[in-house]
């Protein structure tokens, strides 16, 4: 076989020469244009996980509550009474960096389809967003577009957006992150898998017609670094239509309820190619698809375009021949498209036909599982590789520092964004109303809580991933992300059932991002093993780089937990004048990787190693106290340290506090570490002094007054709650 020429089409499609040779070997000939297009997408990083799959084998995926694990459209855990909760987080980073509104909107649309593809009704969306600093016009443009896009899709389809987080850091300036998590509820006996089965069964394409939008999105956008000229990639961004998806969603759930489908799969990256390929691979069968039967938006589309189009709002189902008419009739009722486009075969091959003529013919094994998996060449960087930019003067007073932290866009209330989302539809979202405070959504809530009356209980959901801290130490930082979610759930009295994750990293072919990815996955595995929380699904997004280098390594962790009674939850805000305030947990505050260190331009490598077992024990104590109704308020200590946690608890209700941090100084903390140091394991509780002491918490002061007053040895901080609130609510675009 002759070596491919320098201008070979396979290189333009992102395949290496060696990969092309391997395809030729597996086919016994050179692929034709249709086949090459299909291989290039399924062998892309986005679809094949070729740089991450080996590392992901470290993650624990087993657990007694796991109903569905990795490999299906979404993972699911048992929540009792025959019900399961399905969830998954996925990225849509590069499309959002090119066109934020549609990129974010279709990110939400895609993750929704993953959830209803297994027969679960979506009941909640959470988002994890990362942008550059807000003083950049580009960052404001991306933030505004992404928030509007998420709202547009979620609000229109009637699924509440119940939580999320947004961080602003310079390394995301060029390559923002848009990760969307969806949670669904299913009757376990109505859930469906993606594996195609039953030779002779029909393959039915449902939903929107197929157009030229999003062709090559998986390879062109998702599996290469961003650079100049990205505007020219706009045609590879898909356009979303939430109304179409709303109809497809209802239609699919009704089809499953009536038992009309054998299996179901959504069409995402790489369109029909990946859906048909993965369904055939999972079922150990073959599939024939006739592209002439696919309903098109444009009449003159080529077979390869039809096979790789990423047009949104489409689902692929396997249906017994006798039930095809009933399926088509139900699609008609919901006014959504449906066409029988193929058949399940015993050939073990994906065959593409046009009006009966074969235009592509590949073994499923080669197409779906044949891509080589690569080892990384990780190397730890010798020093901090990202910029350090000081925005807070070194001689700033502690009051100035506290106000600057509260007003920092990453810490400040994200109410500006969350008010653009329907957080209520579905009537499950628990909302705490604080006496004397505003009857608004609880901005500082640690976890979202949704009632599940079907199972007689409730779930709590948290999502987290502080890229800056992961950059300081990918191993410890990733453990912290898991612990942060666990702590957030504990604040709601919830015990973790399962975890999903989206690993957003730079170019894995470069040594530093490779090292970050390797260490982060080890940290994730370590934390999950120690906490006994299985990973039920996830997503990897690599090549997140701009001209200045890689993004902060950002493993976004989403955890779903269970709680018996959402009616007894304490809020995050101080509730009663005179209540004691106490610190609980193995909190060892450090300025390493903290928001204060960032603002001072003092970031460097290294984080203290978290004590997972001690944090887990503190979470268990808090969980028990919450369920027993012993706490008036509970809030976990996170960004901005203890001082910010105290201020947030005061802002929520308008009740101030008087606190003395001397006990922390006696343990060896400096004043700044006690006030602003960060690290896992700390909770701020308020309630009756004797109750808090029985929990083993360290009483630091009491609720009262209209100022946040914190003493720390010789130093003290005193700011009016109103001033703290103004700083904290200052975020808008």
């Amino acid at each position, binding site marked *: 076989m002759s070596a491919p020429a320098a201008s070979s089409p396979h290189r333009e499609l992102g395949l290496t020469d060696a990969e092309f040779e391997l395809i030729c070997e597996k086919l016994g000939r050179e692929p034709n244009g249709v086949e090459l297009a299909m291989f290039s997408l399924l062998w892309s990083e986005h679809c094949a996980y070729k740089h991450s799959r080996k590392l992901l084998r470290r993650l624990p995926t087993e657990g007694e509550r796991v109903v569905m694990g990795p490999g299906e459209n979404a993972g699911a855990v048992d929540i009792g009474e025959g019900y399961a909760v399905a969830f998954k987080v996925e990225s849509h980073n590069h499309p959002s960096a090119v066109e934020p509104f549609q990129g974010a909107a279709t990110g939400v649309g895609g993750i929704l389809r993953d959830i209803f593809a297994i027969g679960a009704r979506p009941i909640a969306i959470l988002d994890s967003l990362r942008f550059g600093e807000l003083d950049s016009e580009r960052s404001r443009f991306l933030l505004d577009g992404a928030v509007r896009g998420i709202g547009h899709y979620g609000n*229109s389809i009637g699924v509440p957006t119940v939580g999320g987080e947004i961080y602003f850091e310079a390394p995301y300036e060029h390559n923002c992150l848009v990760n969307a998590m969806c949670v669904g509820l299913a009757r376990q006996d109505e859930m469906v898998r993606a594996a195609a089965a039953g030779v002779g069964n029909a393959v039915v394409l449902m939903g929107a017609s197929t157009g030229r939008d999003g062709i090559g999105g998986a390879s062109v956008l998702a599996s290469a670094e961003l650079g100049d000229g990205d505007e020219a990639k706009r045609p590879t961004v898909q356009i979303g239509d939430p*109304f179409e998806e709303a*109809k497809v969603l209802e239609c699919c759930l009704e089809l499953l309820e009536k038992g009309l489908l054998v299996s179901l799969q959504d069409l995402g990256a790489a369109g029909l190619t990946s859906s048909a390929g993965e369904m055939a691979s999972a079922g150990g069968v073959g599939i024939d698809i006739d592209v002439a039967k696919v309903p098109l938006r444009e009449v003159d589309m080529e077979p390869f375009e039809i096979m790789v189009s990423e047009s949104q709002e489409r689902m692929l189902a396997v249906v017994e021949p006798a039930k095809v008419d009933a399926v088509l009739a139900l699609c008609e009722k919901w006014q959504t498209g449906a066409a029988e486009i193929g058949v399940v075969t015993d050939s073990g091959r994906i065959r593409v036909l046009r009006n009966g003529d074969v235009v592509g013919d590949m073994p499923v094994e080669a197409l779906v599982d044949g891509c080589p998996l690569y080892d990384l060449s990780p190397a730890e960087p010798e020093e901090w590789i990202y910029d350090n930019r000081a925005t807070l003067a070194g001689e700033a007073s502690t009051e100035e520092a506290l106000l600057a932290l509260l007003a920092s866009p990453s810490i400040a209330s994200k109410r500006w964004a969350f008010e653009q989302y*329907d957080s209520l539809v579905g*009537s499950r979202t628990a909302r705490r*109303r604080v006496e004397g405070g*505003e009857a608004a*959504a609880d901005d500082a809530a640690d976890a979202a809580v949704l009632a599940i009356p079907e199972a007689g209980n409730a779930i709590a959901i948290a999502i987290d991933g502080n890229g800056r801290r992961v950059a300081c130490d990918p191993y410890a930082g990733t453990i912290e992300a898991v612990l942060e979610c666990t702590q957030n759930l504990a604040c709601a009295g919830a015990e973790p059932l399962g975890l999903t994750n989206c690993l957003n990293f730079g170019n894995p072919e470069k040594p530093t991002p490779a090292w970050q990815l390797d260490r982060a996955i080890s940290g994730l595995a370590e934390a999950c093993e120690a906490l006994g929380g299985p990973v039920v699904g996830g997503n990897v997004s690599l090549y997140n780089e701009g001209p200045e280098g890689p993004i902060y390594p950002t493993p976004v962790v989403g955890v779903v937990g269970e709680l018996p009674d959402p009616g007894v939850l304490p809020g995050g805000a101080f509730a009663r004048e005179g209540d004691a305030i106490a610190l609980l947990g193995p909190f060892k505050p450090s300025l390493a990787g903290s928001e204060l260190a960032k603002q001072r331009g003092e970031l460097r490598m290294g984080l203290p190693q978290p004590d997972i077992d001690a944090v887990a024990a503190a979470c268990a104590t808090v969980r028990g106290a919450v369920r027993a109704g012993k706490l008036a308020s509970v809030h976990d200590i996170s960004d901005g340290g203890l001082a910010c946690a105290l201020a947030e608890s005061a802002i929520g209700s308008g009740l101030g506090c008087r606190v003395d941090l001397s006990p922390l100084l006696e343990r060896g903390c400096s004043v700044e570490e006690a006030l602003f140091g960060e690290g896992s394991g700390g909770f701020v509780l308020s309630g009756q002094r004797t109750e808090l002491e029985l929990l083993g918490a360290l009483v630091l002061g009491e609720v009262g007054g209209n100022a946040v007053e914190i003493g720390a040895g010789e130093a003290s901080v005193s700011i009016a709650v109103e001033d703290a609130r103004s700083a904290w609510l200052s975020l808008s675009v």
Partner: protein
Amino acid sequence: MRWGVVQFPGSCDERDALHACGLTGEARLIWHEDRDLGQVDAIVVPGGFSYGDYLRAGAIARFSPAMEAVTEFAAAGGPVLGICNGFQVLCEAGLLPGALLRNEELRFICRQVDLIVEGSVGEFGPLSGTKVADSSEGSETLSIPVKHGEGRYWAPDDVLDEIEAKGQVAYRYAPGQNPNGSVRDIAGVRNEAGNVLGLMPHPEHAVDALTGSMDGLRIFEAVAGARA
């Protein structure tokens, strides 16, 4: 009490409305293609984005077979409650005066607001003159969420003067809480006969203390109480 909740493709809050109605009686969905409403005592046109709301909010739904039947039901004096998109549909159908425009700040907004009840909650539809037990003095306030992108109530000044004079303004946003720039802080209006009510806030999302408030239940109870 038998409630019918109209369901269009693109409705979002129909299940929530069904649940809220179910707290005060029986409730079932009515498919948008059904010309026959069946045996119902009151109709709810729920929130959402009927038919995608692509032309203009509510502009397509008003032509649906179910809405033809709802229009006849309303003309015969049957109580009709339109919530959010349902309010937009009722305005488009000419069953209520005025129109809903894009929010002043051009953004979707989801927020708990206080509503001032003009008259009392009980003065809904055929209940005119009937007061609910604990609203005897002064104006009453209900805490109910709004969530919409096109909720800015508007009508020409002469129409506004007329509906104010006839007592057709049902709810106003409390001072300083108008979330969308609605003219004269109007959050909900009645028709002249009093049996058709539309409002942008979502009473069906305020029927359980766990999810934020129970004040919206009062509106459903008032209708059910009158028809019982």
